[in-house]
């Protein structure tokens, strides 16, 4: 699938070759995604300020000591945005990875087994896909009680079926291909057929779908947080930070704006990376 990447042996050259294929914007996306992940891992270690403590006057404008200024309580906004990036990014990635793995496996089994199992699984997926899932997830978190973990669980429940559909359609398409037919004629047992002959062919489409879906998850999580369904105050979440400081938009516009801008960059880099991957793997 990835042309030109197999001949190289040493990894820097392979990395360079890979980035060249992906193009400059896709490379910016992938480097950005890696940087965000590093920032998310380090988070509070990147700043000397405590994100939860009152350390200065409230509403200080951005300066050298406080890069993003201070918020309505006098906490360092940069430190809080870092913590927000950490929770949003890691939570989004975990839901996407969970959905990707679960959905792919269910789609794989459904598509490879066929018959009644396939029919039943696909009707269940249909039911999930026809429900207004965001709405139900919002209502569910509101009823269960706000919190990041509840948001993650509610979204994960409604997120995997789409991957099951993508995976199943890919598997059905691959199933008709000669190499699978040959493997079946040669008596390759079911599990091996699935993992060695079917799954690898579906991986590129699934990876593209998942990468481009990260921004959807970030947006869903931040909307929940904005609506007061995330972690309660004083925790730092990007959506909630904007919501709580909305009143100061007229005068101290950067306080509600900067967390939202951080959200934009999370989405933008993951979409650039997804777009670059798609152009390489799908050749468009």
């Amino acid at each position: 699938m990835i042309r030109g990447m197999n001949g190289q042996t040493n990894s820097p050259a392979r990395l360079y070759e890979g980035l060249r294929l992906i193009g400059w914007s896709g490379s910016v996306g992938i480097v950005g995604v890696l940087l965000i992940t590093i920032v998310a891992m380090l988070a509070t270690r990147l700043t000397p300020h405590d994100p939860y403590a009152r350390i200065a006057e409230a509403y200080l404008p951005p300066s050298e000591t406080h890069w993003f200024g201070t918020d309505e309580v006098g906490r360092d906004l940069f430190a809080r945005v870092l913590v927000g990036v950490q929770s949003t990014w890691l939570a989004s990635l975990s839901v996407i990875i969970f959905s990707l793995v679960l959905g792919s496996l269910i789609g794989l089994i459904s598509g490879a087994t066929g018959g009644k199992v396939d029919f039943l699984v696909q009707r269940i997926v249909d039911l999930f896909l026809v429900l207004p899932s965001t709405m139900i997830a919002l209502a569910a978190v509101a009823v269960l009680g706000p919190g990041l973990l509840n948001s993650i669980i509610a979204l994960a429940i409604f997120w995997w079926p789409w991957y099951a559909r993508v995976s199943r359609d890919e598997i059905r398409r691959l199933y008709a291909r000669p190499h699978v037919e040959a493997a079946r004629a040669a008596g390759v047992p079911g599990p091996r057929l699935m993992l060695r002959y079917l799954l690898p062919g579906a991986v590129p489409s699934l990876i593209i779908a998942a990468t481009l879906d990260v921004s959807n998850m970030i947006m869903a999580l931040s909307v929940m947080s904005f609506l007061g369904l995330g972690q309660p105050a004083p925790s730092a979440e990007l959506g909630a930070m904007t919501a709580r400081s909305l009143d100061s938009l007229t005068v101290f516009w950067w306080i509600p704006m900067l967390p939202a801008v951080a959200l934009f960059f999370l989405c933008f880099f993951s979409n650039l990376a997804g777009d670059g991957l798609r152009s390489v793997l799908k050749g468009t």
Partner: protein
Amino acid sequence: MALYLAKRACGLAIVLMVMSFIVFLLQSVIPSDPARAMAGPYAPSSTIETVREEFGLNDPIAVQYGHFLVRVSAGDLGKSVRTRQPVGDDLLRYLPATLELILVSTILAMGLAFSLILLLLSGARSQVLRHVFIALGSTPIILLAVLLAYVFWFSLAWLPGSGRLQFRDFVGTTGFYVIDGLLAGRPNVSVDALAHLTLPAMALALPFAVAVVRSLAGSLHDVMRQPYIRTARGNGLSEAAIVLRHGIRNAASAPLAMTGLQIRLLFGNLLVVETVFGWPGLGLYMTQSFATADLPAILGVSMVFGTIYILVSIAVEIAQSLADPRIEL
């Protein structure tokens, strides 16, 4: 057609049942206590007990759900814990504002999508445009709403950004203020209502239009290379007419299917936009209900949004079969 509509009506009923059941099921494991939320944190336990009795919160969950279904089929959605009004009345009060917003933003989104498509087809700077589109598609609704409010309301003061009208005394008959203004013979009310609609409708329309255009651009790219498009050009049709009559119709299937899926993500946007712009609709009502764990209100709004969602997906399917007669309903 009749059979199709009957089937979809059954589907709607099933979806509403499932939704209400999920929310009800969750309620049985909630840590928070609606009776406590209603009575206030310092209420004596006797008061809480009375509240529980009054709202039937002591019955087992299955009994409550049974009661709920009986009541709903009689048109009674229960009483809101927060406003203490029947939820049905609340919904009717806030529904017109939301419907007005959704309708205006749909019209706006169509116009936006069409002009963006023309822009894309003009082919100028396609690489730059592609990245502008990725950036637009990556803009979270929170940033978009806050930016629009800040730039066009606070900074430039071109448009109002809060509420539906500046006339406090105006009472409309239909609840759609643009129409009400005309009916009441006060065109300035309609103009004011439209001005108030512009920013929130824009915030809702832009992400939707961008998503549709990104999907449409892909399939349109292939369609525009077909021989019949060349024929249309040879016949001297204008580029806009070619795209509208021959291009979009043939390319519409994939974006329409995507639209159906995309709409589910837009309800969250509606809630955010109504909150940022203080739009007194169902979204704001629901957001306020979240804070008090107001189960009857949350359920009621979910039912309305669920109905709207199913109606929209029916419309999308009909549009798909109109665009491509090979797709049967």
